[in-house]
């Protein structure tokens, strides 16, 4: 889809003189700064632009959706979007009807938002009011286009008889006559015709096809019993309306319609209404008299208002696919072809059933893609984008088009501190690139608090992205470590399931013990359990802690067993041998015999192997002596046992 390319100005003189360079900042921002190319071979000299006040400009798209007042729109539309996805995945039989209901739901969300905006705009007295008015304009257009698209592309209109729906659309968006009629009827009924709006309301209602209202208003006219009024009432009453369910075929209706036209025309020709110029005009309008329509068309605010009115009296059986030509005729008639606003182009494209053009145009509606992504998704599921796939000339594919918009919209929301989860739900429904996009964006969300981090991890877990969870845990561990929170770091390290990394953290504990003789975070070490299995170093740390625990509770036998198994485990880090061997002394020197001869041999074997360690030198004799004494005790004891 084409997006127009605009030039934006960075209000800075140095940026103009030196030129700009730009880099992307996560997530959706660009930083620009004054810079220019310096070739590596040039001598390193101060630039001609310095000394200067160089500024960095962080440029971002203005996102109106992030305004608090529009937050409800974003969240509620997300709910409906998810309902649409669920409906489609459930393969419901008459999904068309359900889709239309959901389309209505979208519209009622827009309506609620508009009402909210209007209330706020009424209340607001600050500069923000202008902004609110701007939003109202935007979302009014959105509502208007959505409604028409719903009629033309989502709703299943039997026989393509579009006029009743079109009238409903026009009545909804041009409610002025209905309101006026209501005021008139609620006011003083005597001499109602003296009200300045009376005739305007009557004719306006007629043009919107509200025949009953017209008749009611005419009856209240003080001359309502006079002949011309009676005749008009009869004519309007007799006017046939086309209804697919009435059992009348189109040909039959046309016959009736022609008959009514001839009848009414003959009354006009007989100058039966000439005494009442307004009635005369109304009747001439009813038979589609060009000069009469020329008189009233200036009252129409928009060409599509005229279109609906014109169709009521000239083409009551118009089919959806014929709308385009009549629309163009109305535009020509009102001579607004050169004054078409953006909304006009969109509506015209919709009437011409040019869905691609509609989608192209609504991208420009400056509501940051809310409209285009939701509508395109709906149209795609309503099977309206299949035309694209069948057109060999365009490279557009319906599903791709839908996904592109959802990706953009989801990415946009991911950039917001509290809407990122909403953003995720859109990316989830992008079958080809959604998950990869999540993989790129999710880890970039700042880990501002523990709760938020857990939330991000849960979302990664839901989508089966273990590598992201691992990375987040490692980052948290590193952050804790740098702040000196070793216990926290280890907890995150274990969560990361990264063996090498956890080993590095376990090392920190062991080295700390070597240095200070203190094991940190014993609660954590006590509860390691099976989680220690992810790294050898952590197993060693865990087992070494258990040794300490047993020793402190005077379970010397148990602690000796642990120590011996550590000695023979081949898990001991080099820097820890001295500490570990040193730990045997109290056990060897204990009053009762704790280490068996076999244990002592293991110890002596290790001692021999590590005898070159410099930090062991001042202790080795002591340990040897203790071992020798223990060995003699143990051998004697064991010899007694054998007897």
């Amino acid at each position: 889809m084409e997006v127009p390319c605009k030039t934006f100005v960075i209000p800075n003189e140095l940026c103009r003189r030196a030129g700009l360079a730009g880099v992307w900042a996560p997530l959706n921002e660009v930083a620009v700064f004054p810079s220019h190319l310096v070739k590596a071979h040039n001598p390193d000299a101060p630039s001609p632009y310095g000394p200067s006040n160089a500024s960095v400009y962080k440029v971002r798209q203005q996102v109106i959706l992030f305004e608090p007042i529009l937050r409800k729109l974003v969240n509620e539309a997300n709910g409906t979007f998810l309902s649409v996805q669920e409906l489609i995945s459930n393969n419901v039989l008459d999904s068309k009807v359900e889709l239309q209901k959901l389309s209505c739901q979208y519209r009622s969300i827009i309506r609620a938002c508009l009402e909210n905006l209007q209330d706020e705009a009424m209340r607001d007295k600050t500069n923000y009011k202008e902004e609110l008015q701007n939003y109202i304009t935007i979302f009014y257009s959105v509502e208007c286009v959505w409604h028409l698209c719903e009629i033309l592309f989502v709703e299943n209109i039997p026989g393509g008889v579009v006029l009743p729906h079109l009238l409903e659309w026009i009545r909804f968006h041009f409610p002025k006559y209905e309101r006026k009629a209501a005021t008139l009827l609620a006011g003083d009924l005597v001499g109602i015709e003296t009200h300045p709006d009376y005739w305007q309301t009557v004719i306006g209602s007629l043009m919107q096809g509200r025949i009953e209202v017209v008749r009611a208003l005419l009856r209240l006219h003080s001359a309502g019993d006079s002949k011309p009024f009676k005749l008009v009432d009869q004519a309007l009453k007799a006017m046939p309306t086309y209804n697919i369910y009435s059992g009348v075929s189109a040909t039959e209706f046309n016959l009736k319609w022609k008959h009514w036209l001839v009848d009414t025309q003959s009354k006009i020709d007989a100058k039966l209404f000439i005494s009442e110029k307004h009635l005369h005009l109304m009747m001439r309008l009813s038979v589609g008299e060009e000069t009469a329509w020329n008189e009233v068309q200036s009252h129409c605010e928009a060409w599509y208002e005229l279109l609906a009115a014109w169709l009521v009296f000239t083409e009551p059986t118009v089919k959806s696919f014929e709308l385009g030509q009549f629309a163009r005729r109305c535009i020509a008639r009102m001579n607004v072809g050169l004054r078409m606003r953006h909304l006009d182009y969109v509506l015209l494209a919709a009437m011409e059933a040019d869905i691609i053009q509609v989608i192209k145009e609504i991208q420009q509606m400056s509501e940051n893609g809310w409209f285009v992504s939701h509508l395109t998704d709906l149209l795609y599921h309503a099977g309206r984008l299949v035309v694209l796939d069948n057109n060999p000339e365009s490279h557009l594919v319906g599903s791709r088009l839908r996904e592109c918009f959802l990706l953009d919209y989801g990415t946009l929301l991911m950039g917001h501190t509290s809407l990122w989860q909403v953003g995720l739900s859109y990316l989830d429904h992008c079958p080809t690139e959604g998950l990869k996009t999540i993989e790129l964006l999710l880890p970039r969300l700042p880990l501002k608090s523990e709760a938020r981090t857990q939330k991000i991890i849960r979302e990664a877990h839901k989508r089966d992205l273990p590598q992201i969870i691992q990375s987040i845990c490692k980052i948290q561990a590193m952050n804790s470590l740098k702040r000196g929170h070793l216990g926290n770091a280890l907890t995150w390290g274990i969560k990361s399931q990264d063996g090498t990394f956890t080993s590095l953290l376990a090392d920190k504990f062991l080295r700390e013990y070597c240095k200070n003789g203190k094991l940190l975070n014993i609660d954590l070490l006590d509860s390691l359990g099976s989680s220690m299995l992810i790294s050898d170093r952590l197993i060693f740390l865990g087992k070494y802690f258990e040794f300490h625990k047993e020793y402190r509770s005077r379970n010397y036998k148990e602690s000796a067993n642990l120590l011996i198994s550590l000695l023979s485990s081949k898990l001991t880090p080099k820097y820890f041998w001295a500490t570990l061997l040193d730990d045997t002394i109290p056990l060897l020197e204990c009053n009762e015999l704790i280490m068996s001869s076999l244990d002592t041999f293991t110890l002596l074997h290790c001692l021999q192997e590590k005898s070159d360690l410099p930090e062991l030198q001042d202790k080795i004799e002591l340990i040897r002596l203790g071992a020798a004494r223990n060995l003699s005790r143990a051998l004697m004891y064991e010899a007694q046992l054998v007897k």
Partner: protein
Amino acid sequence: MFEAQEINAEHKDLIHDVAYDFYGERMATCSSDQYVKVWDQTSDGKWNLTSSWKAHSGSVWKVTWAHPEFGQVLATCSFDRTAAVWEELVGETPGPGERGTRHWVRRTNLVDSRTSVTDVKFGPRTQGLQLATCSADGIIRIYEAPDVMNLSQWTLQHEIQCKLSCSCLSWNPSLSKNHPLMLAVGSDDNNPSNGGKIFIYEYSDNIRRWMKTETISSVTEAVHDISFSPNLGRSFHLLAVATKDLRILSLSPIADNANVQSGLYKLDIQTAAQFDDHGCMVWRVCWNITGTILASSGDDGCVRMFKMNCINAWKPVAVLKGDGSHVANEGHRSSVCSAASLPTPPVAAVVSQTARYIKLGTISQSREVPWH
């Protein structure tokens, strides 16, 4: 449609590089004034200078952040022939700032180069802490910190002779069984007769060496910047090239053509897009996180953005341009430079507690007119 926040960078000369950390919450800048500065964003969106130090004894060309898994680590490269790795230390006691007292220490100075080090980039995070540098004399160096807890030890793992003066390098961020480690290096050699100016190197696990798999012959003009796009699961790679124009190249491994010895595939290289919108030399390219929008800077003084549309074609979407003359007209100046010593009315002082954004004016509303 766009709004901007001004951060007075307080450098005494032009800024050569701005780098954001993984989350976009920290910003590092470097300049010809030989300083590196680190900025932190407060919770209400304002940017505060938290560190500033003289990092080199020459212009600092590039600054780049390591992945946060390795802590708060920066690398810089300079005209002074060195590259350096910096780590931030957080004080034990919480200081006045939001994150406590902190300062940056030089962990290592990589002094192997005999000429200006023109680019420095950390490798993909899954490969541990690797750093690639390239220099004006055409040598690419790959360093590694074997112990990520000790960043003062770096070993020079590989040295690759490139023959032509190197100006820029880029790691391919997409790594998988099918994609070995890949580096692209660009040369700003001016002589077209020296052939292609972009070289693709890949690491062969089989022989544990970096091999040149490709010289991109379609680009013979000087190359000033290159950048691999983040990969959204495509089978091919996209490389943005800043040369006399802007190029986007696609590199697809040719499946049944692996080198017996190295196990590396030949690449099929196509030009996916070529833009002359700058109308002159392009010298900087940068992808957004998802690789959907490319920003380029050129000698026309503009930053231009190109977006991939849904039929996978690239289209220009926006242009940013500096113009001081608009400042006075729009009357934003006083509100923008809160750092300047202009007398600020008390109301503005209250407002300036939070980040200020100015709306950017547009020059042309070229709805119908195509950009040329």
